[in-house]
Structures are given as structure tokens and as C-alpha cells.
């Protein structure tokens, strides 16, 4: 059989041929399940554009994206940072951006990696299925962009910027971690928006604008006011850890459009939440898939040795894990870790050792690596995945060690290494490092004094003495103060003992 292509040049014909060959392997031999694929060829500049808008094809406008663009552009121009070969979007159809500068082998690699690896993961992983709406995201983004642009026209860029700044500051506190999001289609979304505006317009009475303070409830006064507030207080369920949701629903001062903007920020934050929880798995899955597919292409003599060597070259640099003493060390490489664990699972399925049978009795030697992997890709996230599947061999290969950094001590203590007693400790610690709920501070709204001065009280539950970055927290709290409109207080409480840190209190009257 002739090669699909030779040499570095690519064109649309070759792209199509290679895609078809990859599709045959991915769907036919590996049994992957994917959304339909849409490949879009872009230039380096467009890639920078995509970087700036956090990888999304459509996004509302905000200065922080301009800042990101300016910084990435400088880094790229000066050669400090290369550009990604691809960006893939969790949408239906799955949009996969490839750069025009890539060689044909790189395009093949990108197709295997993004269009099949990531795509399969997006479609099958339970977090994505539960929390994101791949079919609706592009329409929602278009709606968000237009809505924000409209608001800029109606209320001015500055007013919109203030709300977006505040929303962005609270992004990580803007996700629901436990309840299931109700699904709403774009049409419903638009109808709701319109209805809200319609209501606002029909109930608008110029008389109210003459009242100082523009506050209907305070006009009602006296007992009526109390009753309203009591009812509200009952309606607010506390504690609430989704700060954006809380402010959107309960802030006494926000206008309808401001709530809608907060909602947009919150929806996007929620959309990215699964990605934050599955970095290792997602990249591991894509890397594993591209490795399998490219190897198969070579085995079937569809690509020549030169192309395969070029692929191996990029593949090895992607899964490289520098030691922590190395200058290049920048944390654990999720590509390397994910790929290593998945290769290990494959090995355990096919030719397990004594140790493997002890560690993984469920699937050791079951002879069905793809089935095992697919099940795992569907049902786990980083933390549970590492806790379940990180085996002693990978820990040994990476020569992992666990350090304890106790505040006040002038040294790190080695508490476990890659040996018989250490495997489980290392594994547990590593899994915890990838648990986003532990990385983000645990902050909740604990008290709203609706009957008094409407003070909002937030509480940070401190684990292991990990306090907030104070200056950043102060600025963030100012954003909350602006959204809430009344005094705001933040206190820090030790989660284990319940004692509060007096120095951790920030009060904005």
C-alpha cells in the first residue's frame, strides 16, 4: 500500500486522506466514540487570538483578554514560548483548530490527539456529560458576546467592565460543585432574558426615579419592609459556596443586566470546571490515543519512517518529565503522568506481574486494555483516577518522593519515597494535589444580616494553616462589596478546631 503522504508539506487532500485513515483506526480498531469533527485551519496570529479568549472561538470583550494577548504575543515574538499545535473545543461538532505552520506529520498527530483523543474524552467522561452542554455552548457563547456588547452600548463600557471585573475575580468561587445544573436551551435562555427585560420595562415607573436611593423596599417601610426581608432571609439558603450564584440571586443592588452578566461568567466558569478537574486524564487520554494511532499508521505502512521518527520526536518532548532538580522543572507534566499511567494500565491488563495482581486485582491480566481504559476515561476524574490507577511501577519510574512543607520549619521533610512503604502515601498525596476542591480556598457565605445593616459575612475555612493571600483577598472583597452594595466581612476560621484567626479578618463597611 502506498504511503498516505511523504515529506513535510500538507494540503487539504492529504489532510482528508490522513483523517480517513485515522478515523478507521480510532473508530474501527480502538472503538472510540466521538462527536462529529470539524477541522479549522488557522494562522499563528489567529492562534494567539484563540489563546487570548481562553481557547473559545467566540467570547465577549474584556481588557483582561487584551492583556493576555499582549503578553502572549511578546513571549511568542521573542521566542520564549512556542504556540500550541492545536486547540480543541468541547462542542458538538467538536471544533479542532490546527495551525497552518504544522508539518503534515504534525497535522496527523494533532488530528489523532485532539480530534479523536480529546473528542472521545469530552463525549464520554461523566463530568463533561453532567456539567457541560456540548451542543449548546457555541450558541451560548454567541448569546453572551451579543448580550455583553448590547450592555456596553446601553450602559457604557465602564459600567460593564466593573461587573465583569468583579465576576472574573470570583470565577473560581462561581461553580456548583455538587448539584446538577438544570439544562436550558438557548431559545429558553433568550426568552428568559427577554421576559426579564419586558418585566422591568412594564413595571418601570418614572416616579421611583425621583425617590432618593431608588429602593422600592425601603419605600414600603416599617412592617412591610420587615416582612419582605424576613421572607427573603428565609429564601436564602445558607451556607452557600457559589459566591457568584449567591450575588446574582440575592444582591439587593444589582440591575437585571448586571445579574445576567454575572450569570454568563458563572456559566463559563462552570463549563470549564470539568476541564480543571481532568487535566491529567484528558491529556493522558489524548496522548495515549495519538500514540496508539500513529504507531498503527506506521505498522500499517501508511506513513514512512521519516514521518514516524518526526512523530516520536514531538511525542517524547510532550511526555518529558524533568526532575525537580532540573532547571526546566515546572511541576508534574500532566501529559507525562497521564500517558505513563495509561500505558501502565495497558501493560497490567496484558502481562501483569505478581505486584500488579496484588495492586490491581480487578483488571490485572483481563486481556482487554482498551475496554478497561474506556471505562476509566468515562467514570473517573484526576483525583479518583490517580487514587485508583497510579501503580507502583509508575511511581518508581518517576522516582517520586513526597515532601512535607511545614510553616515555620526551615526545611522540607521527605515523608515518603518510591518504596514499599511509600507507594500509598505518594499516591494519596499526588491525587490530592490534583483535587481542585482542595486547591481552591473553601469560602462560603455564612451570614446575611437582612434585618439589620445587610452585612454579608464570608468565611474561609482554613485547612492546614493555608491562609489566603491577603492583598489579593482584600481586592477581591472590594469587588464583592461593589456587587453586594452593603458592608461585607471576611473571616478565616480553622476548619479543624473552629478557632478563628483574628488577623484574617477583613471588614469593608
Amino acid at each position, binding site marked *: 500500500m502506498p504511503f498516505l503522504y511523504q515529506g513535510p508539506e500538507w494540503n487539504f487532500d492529504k489532510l482528508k486522506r490522513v483523517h480517513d485513515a485515522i478515523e478507521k483506526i480510532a473508530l474501527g480498531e480502538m472503538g472510540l466514540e466521538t462527536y462529529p469533527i470539524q477541522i479549522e485551519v488557522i494562522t499563528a496570529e489567529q492562534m494567539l487570538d484563540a489563546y487570548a479568549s481562553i481557547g473559545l472561538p467566540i467570547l465577549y470583550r*474584556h481588557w483582561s483578554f*487584551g492583556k493576555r494577548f499582549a503578553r502572549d504575543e*511578546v513571549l511568542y515574538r521573542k521566542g520564549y514560548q512556542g504556540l500550541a499545535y492545536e486547540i480543541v473545543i468541547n462542542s458538538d461538532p467538536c471544533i479542532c483548530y490546527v495551525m497552518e505552520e504544522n508539518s503534515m506529520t504534525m497535522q496527523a498527530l494533532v488530528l489523532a490527539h485532539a480530534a479523536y483523543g480529546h473528542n472521545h474524552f469530552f463525549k464520554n467522561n461523566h463530568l463533561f456529560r453532567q456539567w457541560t452542554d456540548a451542543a449548546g455552548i457555541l450558541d451560548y457563547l454567541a448569546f453572551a458576546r451579543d448580550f455583553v456588547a448590547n450592555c456596553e452600548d446601553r450602559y457604557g463600557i465602564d459600567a460593564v467592565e466593573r461587573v465583569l471585573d468583579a465576576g472574573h475575580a470570583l470565577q473560581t468561587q462561581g461553580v456548583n460543585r455538587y448539584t446538577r445544573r438544570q439544562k436550558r436551551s438557548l431559545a429558553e435562555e433568550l426568552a428568559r432574558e427577554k421576559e426579564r427585560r419586558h418585566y422591568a420595562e412594564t413595571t418601570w415607573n418614572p416616579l421611583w426615579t425621583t425617590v432618593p436611593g431608588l429602593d422600592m423596599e425601603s419605600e414600603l417601610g416599617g412592617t412591610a419592609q420587615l416582612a419582605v426581608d424576613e421572607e427573603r432571609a428565609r429564601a436564602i439558603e445558607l451556607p452557600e459556596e457559589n459566591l457568584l450564584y449567591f450575588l446574582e440571586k440575592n444582591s439587593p443592588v444589582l440591575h437585571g443586566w448586571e445579574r445576567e452578566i454575572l450569570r454568563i461568567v458563572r456559566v463559563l466558569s462552570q463549563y470549564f470546571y470539568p476541564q480543571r478537574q481532568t487535566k491529567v486524564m484528558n491529556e493522558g487520554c489524548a496522548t495515549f490515543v495519538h500514540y496508539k494511532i500513529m504507531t498503527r499508521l506506521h505498522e500499517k505502512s501508511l506513513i514512512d519512517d521519516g514521518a514516524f521518527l518526526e512523530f516520536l520526536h514531538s511525542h517524547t518532548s510532550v511526555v518529558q518529565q524533568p526532575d525537580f*532538580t532540573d532547571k526546566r522543572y515546572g511541576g508534574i507534566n500532566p501529559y507525562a503522568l497521564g500517558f505513563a499511567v495509561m500505558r501502565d494500565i495497558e501493560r497490567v491488563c496484558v502481562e501483569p506481574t505478581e505486584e500488579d495482581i496484588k495492586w490491581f486485582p480487578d483488571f490485572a491480566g483481563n486481556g482487554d486494555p482498551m475496554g478497561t481504559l474506556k471505562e476509566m476515561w468515562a467514570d473517573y476524574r484526576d483525583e479518583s483516577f490517580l487514587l485508583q490507577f497510579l501503580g507502583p511501577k509508575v511511581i518508581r519510574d518517576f522516582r517520586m518522593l*513526597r515532601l512535607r512543607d511545614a510553616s515555620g520549619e526551615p526545611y*522540607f521533610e521527605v515523608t515518603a519515597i*518510591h518504596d514499599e512503604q511509600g507507594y500509598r502515601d505518594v499516591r494519596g498525596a499526588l491525587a490530592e494535589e490534583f483535587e481542585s476542591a482542595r486547591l481552591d480556598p473553601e469560602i462560603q457565605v455564612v451570614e446575611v444580616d437582612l434585618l439589620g445593616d445587610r452585612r454579608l459575612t464570608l468565611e474561609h475555612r482554613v485547612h492546614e494553616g493555608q*491562609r489566603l493571600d491577603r492583598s489579593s483577598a482584600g481586592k477581591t472583597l472590594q469587588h464583592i462589596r461593589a456587587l453586594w452594595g452593603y458592608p461585607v466581612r471576611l473571616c478565616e476560621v480553622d476548619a479543624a478546631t473552629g478557632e478563628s484567626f483574628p488577623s484574617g479578618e477583613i471588614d469593608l463597611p
Partner: protein
Amino acid sequence: MNIIDRRLNPKGKSLPNRQRLLRRVKAQVREAVAQSIAGRRISEVDADKAVPVPVHGIGEPSFRKGADGNREFVLPGNQKFIKGDRIPKPPSGGGGGHEAADSGSGEDDFTFSLSRKEFLDIFFDDLELPDMVKRRLKESTATVPARAGYTVSGAPQALDVLRTMRNGLARRLALRRPRQEDLAELETSLAEAEAAGDIVAAAMLAQKIEAFRRRLRLIPWIDPVDVRYRRFEQRPVPIAQAVMFCLMDVSGSMNEHMKDLAKRFFMLLYLFLDRRYKAVDIVFIRHTHEAQEVDEDTFFHSRETGGTVVSSALQVAIDVIDERYPVDAWNIYIAQASDGDNLTSDRGRVIDAMTRKLLQACQYFAYLEVDDPPADVWEGRSTTSELWRTYQELQRPGTPLALRRATAAGQIFGVFHELFSRDAVS
């Protein structure tokens, strides 16, 4: 599967975001532009030179954990440690190296560059130019295509036959392609040999002919590598040439603020001339009680002491015009900046120099009187300066002389008002 080519989509998708960023850091951008103006030569005001803007204080706050507290983390690549070992912490900051980097504020500080257009926008904003004028100054000049060598690709109508044939000839010679004449000659000899019945010679000739033919087939007469196209380059339309005289009083009474105003004034005139003329020369003449022609650095940066005799500068200008810039070949523009001081006894000479020579020779004479803020100093001022009164005397309808006082950059434009509006009419 769908493949879509997005490369031709409109560019600058994140431009609106950039504009919002510029709004956000307006003060810092202005400062950078002011610094850049101080550092630029006048002829560089329009140069496509990036202006670096160091940005700080636009962090995006969030609730995040600081460096303190106890934590455990896993590192790869253990070489020598066993359980219970202690590793001294690095001296600066606690926590693992990578974690400290996450929460550091360093990433909020960075430098980005303003494009030429953005630089001019802000430059013009300070000068409070009317929009029409801004637009005209930003326009790039008209261009015509001009021949610029050869290229290997191009449109068929740009094919250069001569060059292509010459390349073909060279290649055919180098590869020793047989000529048609040689072939014809061989064929006649073959015919002769066959007629003579010399079979051996005929066979050899036939073989040779075959080889010739094969060579002819393999080495084409014209090969794609021979083809050359004429290459064109867009060159600015040559209109004419102009010389711009910058005259400035550098006596001790001119302070930095005044010099900055003067510089912007000169830059604006330069921009205007640069749009209209293909080549613009600049002559710098500074004066105290005596004048001399100097280079740009000396002009703006060196200090002189002495009295103030304006006519000396005018005389140097006249000399330079006579010597190097014949009136019939050059458009002459004169821009003078001064704080208005002049010796009363010099008045006659100034009027003489102006009427006798300069006002006839030049297209436009712009005089800017600079002073310190506050801006309302002129309204309340009863006495005008010596030089101002002198020039006012010369001002008649039709005289290309414009006078203006400025205490801030926004007032400079007035002196050119007539110049720009005349340009709009023509």
C-alpha cells in the same frame, strides 16, 4: 468530517480587547508616549517604531491561598533521598518553588508595545487636532508600483521573456543540450553514409542520433526553473521636496516645558510635510545673541547662555537657503519657537530680514510663542512680547505668517490651522 480554512478570516479579532486594555492603562500609555517623544528625533515621529509600555497594577485579584501553611506535595526525579531526610528550603519565600510562582504578583507586570497608529493617536490626542486633520496625517502616502528586480513567481503578464530565455539558454549550454543544427547535420551524414553503403558508420551515426534525441527529450527547451517574472514594489509617489527650518531660542529663559512644547510643534509640522513631500530636509538653527546651525541633539539638549537676538537666526536661515536650498527647487517651511524675548534694537533687522527675503521665499512661516502654564496667563496679560509685536506688524492678508501662543500641547495646533485648511482646499 469537515475541513474549514479560516486563515482568510478577518484579522485583529482581539483588537477590541486591546483597546479596552489601552483604556485601562491610559495613564501609563501616555507616560510612555511622552517619554518616547522626548527620545525620538523629529523625523522619527512617524517611524514605525514600537513604543514599549511597561504595565503594572492591572492584576486580576481572586481568592487564592498564600504561601503559608502546611502542605504536602509530590516531586518527580528523586535521586538520593529516603524517608525522614530533610531538605533545606530555598532562601527566598516559603513553599515549593512552583507554588510560590503561582501566587506571585510578577505575572501582572509586563511590557507591551504600541503600534505606530496607536502612538500617533495618542500624540494627536495631546495636540487636540481636529479629526479631519488626524485622518489626513495618518493616511499613508500614495504609491506607484516601481520595478524592483525579478522573482520566480508571479502573474503571467509580468513574465519577463528576455530573462527567461537567457536562463534557458544558460541551462541548455550547461547541460549540453544538442542543437537542432547538429542533429540535422548528423542526419544528413547518416543519409550519406547509408547512400554510400557504409553500414558500420551508419550504425554509429544512428546510435549517436538516438542519443541526441534522447537528450533533447530529457532536457527541455524551457524549463520551469528558467521562468522569471518582473517584480514590482510599491514606492511612494514623488511629489516634491521640502525643507523645514526649526528655529529656536535656547537662551536660559527657555525651560524644559517650553522645549517640549517646541519639539511637539516641530514634530507636527514635520508630519504634515512628510505627508505632502517625498523628501523632507530639516535644518536646525538655534540662537541666543548669535545663531548657528546645529544637529538635532545639540538643538534640544545643550544649554547656552547669552542675550537674545532673533535676527541672527533669521540671517543664518537666509544664508542656508541661499547656499543649499534654491527657492525654485525647494518648498521652504519655517517654524520658530521662542519665549518672545528680543532686543528692542533688533526690531529693524528682524523686519528687514523677514520682508526682504524670508516671507517671499517660504511657503509658510509659523511662529509659536511658548510659555509656562497656567493657561490663563495670556488672557490676563496686557503687554505682549517684543517679538510678537514685531511679527504682528508684518501680518497682512496673504502673508504666509502664522502666530500662536501656547502654554500646553493642546494649543499648538492653532498655528497650523491655516496650513491644514489650505491643504484641505487644494
